[in-house]
């Protein structure tokens, strides 16, 4: 049996590359009392198994806790589990649970409760079930010992269990009320008890006086107001109606940063923009053409014009963002990003692939005189996606490629990008990928692996490369972190050769918080842990906030 310290050390290794938590997270001398008023966005159910959005997690994480947690410094810590061990064949992971914990409805938290939740997730196909790939069953070995049985070793299991949506809810409440019941009244073991909820308006969480972590939480209550309009969120923060606004527009950041009563925090997220390249269509099946497309995009220009210079960060590695296990800086020496903008290099790569301007019309043609024309699909959604697509179109046209940009309605776009290789009609499509578990397993096995071609997985490029598949499988099963990190690095290096997508910048997360709020953590996955926050009452009063 191998002790969890090994995994923790690996997490620490990963953490060394991560950004540190917000500076105010370390503020000393927490004060008790007060109500923290946050803005949130809950479009779906509150039931964790059916809502994996950051907005949903922000709400239910106040009440619902995981076996392990990943903190703002992106290190995995024990939570409901106090330790864990892995069997020699790495097919069984056993957790020792903390004792004396109760769910808010009085049900004791034990191995049986934990096993029930995960077995139910497998049986009922909760939305996160793809992250539990290879998990056969979960058994309660004793009152406080629960084992996860795997068909094949999975190094991603622990980080995936830290994913907030895999929190453990009360089996009693679930059996009595079902998903629908917990969807509006979440019952877990967390520091706050949900007492009120009105869909589309607010959710109120009151302090759990019987919370198992002594001395916590500091706040009396957390009120989450659901405010979908970002301008309204910012105005409510400025007027003092709420204590925190998320998703602050990039162009508002300079103005809000000058306000003495507000703190503006920007951190890189786990989401990287990319352009899907349909690897099955000609000439996009040629890596040289795909590399040329990558070199033709001025990523710094995108950051400057679409994100006001602050809303996104230039990517340092393919697919993985800083903070994901195994991340390494894969930029060429002296370059600001991978595939740094170089139009001449792009043109020469395209020429090597047989495409050049043969008739002086500024567009490239092949030897038969057929021009290179591509269809780029996008949607008017997300943070500046449409603007990025427009820029990509113009950059590719400078390379001599005719690009037909089509804007699809969001649901249509989603449906069209979920089709298999025979039905898919796009050449290029703008998307973003997120690695919420901060583990590379999902991008390696589920986003780029040959077995993950749409519709089975999330490989929309229909990219297939034996070497990346082999490295992904090795990393998936490898228990030794150093070796695993090596496989991840080799996998990224191979991706740079293959260029299955056009790699674009990584988006940043921006929040603005009142200066009297301390201790809250904004995680790169986009969730906000308000349960660890506290309020400086004197400062709040000084700012004239009397609610």
């Amino acid at each position, binding site marked *: 049996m191998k002790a969890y310290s090994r995994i923790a050390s690996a997490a620490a290794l990963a953490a060394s590359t991560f950004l540190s938590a917000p500076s105010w997270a370390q503020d000393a001398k927490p004060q008790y009392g007060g109500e923290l008023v946050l803005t949130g966005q809950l*479009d779906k159910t509150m039931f964790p198994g059916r809502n994996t959005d950051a907005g949903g997690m922000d709400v239910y994480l106040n009440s619902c806790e995981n076996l392990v947690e990943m903190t703002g410094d992106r290190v995995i810590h024990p939570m409901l589990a106090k330790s864990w061990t892995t069997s020699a064949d790495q097919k069984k992971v056993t957790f020792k649970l903390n004792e004396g914990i109760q769910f808010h409805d009085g049900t004791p938290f034990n191995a049986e409760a934990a096993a029930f939740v995960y077995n139910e997730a497998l049986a009922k*196909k909760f939305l996160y079930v793809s992250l539990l790939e290879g998990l056969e069953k979960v058994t309660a070995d004793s009152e406080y010992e629960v084992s996860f049985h795997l068909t094949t070793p999975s190094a991603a299991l622990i980080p995936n269990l830290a994913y907030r949506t895999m929190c453990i809810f009360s089996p009693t409440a679930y059996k009595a009320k079902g998903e629908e019941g917990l*969807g509006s009244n979440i019952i877990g073991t967390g520091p706050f008890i949900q007492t009120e909820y009105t869909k589309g308006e*607010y959710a109120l969480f009151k302090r759990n006086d019987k919370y198992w972590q002594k001395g916590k939480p500091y706040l009396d209550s957390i009120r989450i107001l659901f405010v*979908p309009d970002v*301008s309204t969120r910012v105005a409510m923060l400025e*007027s003092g109606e709420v204590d925190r606004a998320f998703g602050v527009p990039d162009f508002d950041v300079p103005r809000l940063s000058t306000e003495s009563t507000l703190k503006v925090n920007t951190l890189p997220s786990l989401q990287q923009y990319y352009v899907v390249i349909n690897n099955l269509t000609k000439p996009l099946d040629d890596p040289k053409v795909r590399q040329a497309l990558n070199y033709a995009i001025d990523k710094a220009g995108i950051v400057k014009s679409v994100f006001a210079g602050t809303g996104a960060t230039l990517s340092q590695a393919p697919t993985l963002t800083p903070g994901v296990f195994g991340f390494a800086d894969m930029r060429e020496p002296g370059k600001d990003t991978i595939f740094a903008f170089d139009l001449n290099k792009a043109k020469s790569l395209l020429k090597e692939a047989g495409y050049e301007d043969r008739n002086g019309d500024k567009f490239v043609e092949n030897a038969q005189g057929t021009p290179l024309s591509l269809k780029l699909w996008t949607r008017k959604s997300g943070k500046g996606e449409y603007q990025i697509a427009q820029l990509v179109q113009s950059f590719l046209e400078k390379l001599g490629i005719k690009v037909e940009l089509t804007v699809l309605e969001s*649901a249509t776009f989603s449906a069209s990008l979920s089709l298999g290789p025979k039905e898919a009609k796009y050449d290029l499509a703008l998307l973003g990928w997120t690695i919420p578990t901060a583990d590379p397993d999902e991008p390696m096995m589920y986003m780029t692996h040959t077995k993950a071609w749409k*519709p089975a997985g*999330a490989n929309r490029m229909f990219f297939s490369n034996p070497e990346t598949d082999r490295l992904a499988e090795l990393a998936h099963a490898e228990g030794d972190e150093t070796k695993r990190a090596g496989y991840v690095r080799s996998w990224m290096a191979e991706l740079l050769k293959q260029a299955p997508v056009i790699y674009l910048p990584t988006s940043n997360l921006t929040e603005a918080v009142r200066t009297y709020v301390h201790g809250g953590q904004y995680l790169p996955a986009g969730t906000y842990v308000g349960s660890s926050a506290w309020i400086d009452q004197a400062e709040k009063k000084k700012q004239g906030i009397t609610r």
Partner: protein
Amino acid sequence: MGFVSPDPRDNLPATWEGQKTGLAMARMILNRFIFMIFAGLLLLTFLFCLFHAIPGDPARLIAGDSAPENLVQSIRVAYGLDQPLMTQYTTYMAKVMTGDFGLSNFSRQPVLQIVGPRLLNTAKLAAWSMLLAMTVSLILGCLSATYWNHPVDRGITAFSLVGICTPIFVTGILAIYLFGVHLRWLPIGGMTTWKHYIMPVATLGLAQAAGFTRMVRACMIDALGRDFVTTARSKGVPEHVIVFKHALRNALLPIITLFGLGLGHTLGGAAVAESIFNWPGLGRLMVDSILTRDLPLTQGCIFFFAMLFILVNLIVDLLYRWADPRMANE
């Protein structure tokens, strides 16, 4: 030889006239309710067809873009989306007949439970806004017509034109920054206290009043130019009596129609105001449900919006009869 009435009904007692009017009114209300039921069912059928004709898979949206196909398929089965369209339609309509509009695809709460409070919130916003719009427009429209071509008229006309030309989201955000952020007089989002009503109601109501004022002014100018007004003036009737009793009563018919149509516009505008002021109303809910392809919820929202609109038109018709007794017998 006495006068013989050509119509025997003329000899009936006066109470019969009242009964006849009441009967016509009851018949009209009953007809309207029957119409409402048919219109509602037709609307639901149309929406059902529309939602299945446009691309986009609700199961895919529930599962998320990256979800594997087997998970999406399990959601299709769980939500009955794998059934033949006709089966889905008949099941849905049969449930609607019993008052069950199904569960929201995302929140898994009954649609009625979600829509009910939201409808009430939108009705509150629309009612107060309309009340403000009617009051302001009647006063300003009458003043404008009375002082035709006078600086008062020009000032009111300028107000109307600015109001008509400025979209609600602009006035709303300006109001938020002025009264909410800088002066801190009024709360910005929600509908907890009476103070929360002021900005959304004023924004929506005054925008509507701007348009109404122009129409009231035109109707009143027309009425004030009629012969009966000249007669009244020559008889020495005070001007305020001429304006408010004689001219306004005669100008009311087109104005009532205008207000009725305007309410539809207010309900549309409410969706924008609800987003800006974080008002938990039906408009915002409907927009969200359309974007997420939450079919049961969208159907519920549009159905109740349509019912509200038909109901308002019924009220307008009743008001018509009050304003013009000649209509009562038709």
